[in-house]
């Protein structure tokens, strides 16, 4: 009885052929998979990558030039400020020295007073 039942199972599960043209459809699908992705997936991203790198390079170079110019400008301004400050200090020193020389000159050339003559 068991064998008969298993024979029935094997009969019910007898292999069947696929619809005609099955192998051709597999090959068509294989061709589609191997051909379609080539153009967009390989070239377009590379072109975009090159464009992106080109723009990035220009932007980087411009940034470096601007930074160098800005640093030079700041250094020039600082040097000018320091020069003006040194000049102002020199003029002040000369003015003080001149006043002291005037006082000394007056003291040397002043005529002797009467108090001095009586001594």
């Amino acid at each position, binding site marked *: 009885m*068991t064998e008969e039942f298993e024979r029935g199972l094997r009969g019910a599960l007898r292999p069947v052929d696929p619809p005609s043209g099955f192998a051709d459809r597999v090959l068509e699908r294989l061709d589609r998979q191997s051909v379609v992705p080539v153009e967009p997936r390989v070239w377009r991203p590379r072109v975009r990558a090159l464009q992106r790198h080109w723009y990035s390079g220009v932007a980087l170079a411009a940034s470096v030039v601007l930074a160098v110019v800005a640093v030079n400008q700041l250094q020039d301004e600082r040097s000018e400020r320091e020069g003006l400050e040194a000049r102002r200090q020199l003029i002040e020193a000369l003015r003080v020295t001149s006043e002291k020389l005037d006082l000394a000159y007056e003291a040397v050339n002043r005529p002797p007073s009467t108090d001095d003559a009586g001594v």
Partner: protein
Amino acid sequence: MADELLVKARAGDRAAFAGLVRVHQRLVYSVALRMLAQREAAEDLAQEVFLQLHRSLETIESPSHLIFWLQKVTANRSIDRLRREGSFEAAPLEEAIGLAATSEGDPLFERELRRQLLELNPAARAVMVLRYQEDLDPSDIALALDMSINTVKSHLKRSLAMLRQNLGAPLDGCPEEIAG
């Protein structure tokens, strides 16, 4: 012949690969059809199996290895698809399952057997298809479906009992290879 086709297909010969498809399409399509019970879904899955084979040709060692590889991949892909998408909308039974007209046994009994097989869960259905359609031993089924041999025997025992009960066949008796 099969060995020559395999060697040439591995070397990139398109005609040889087409030959391999023609030789094995019946096996792959039948397993997919018994599992999914829907003609379009079965053809789609069978095509995917051959596309995967094309990518994996380097790993196929011999014609017998190729047959086992196809049985294994088809069964596992079918189980995955059934678990992912659930059972497919049932087509008219004889259109989907076919063969009643060419059957040598009782067509009504065999049709009812096929209908009852669709009531099994995907793993149990795969075990039954590999055992009674592909004639694999329980040990080979265990290898193909990554199960223990006891799990395979348990599936076979329970599925046969269920089928017998639903078909009104006597419940006693069990094939020797799955007894114990």
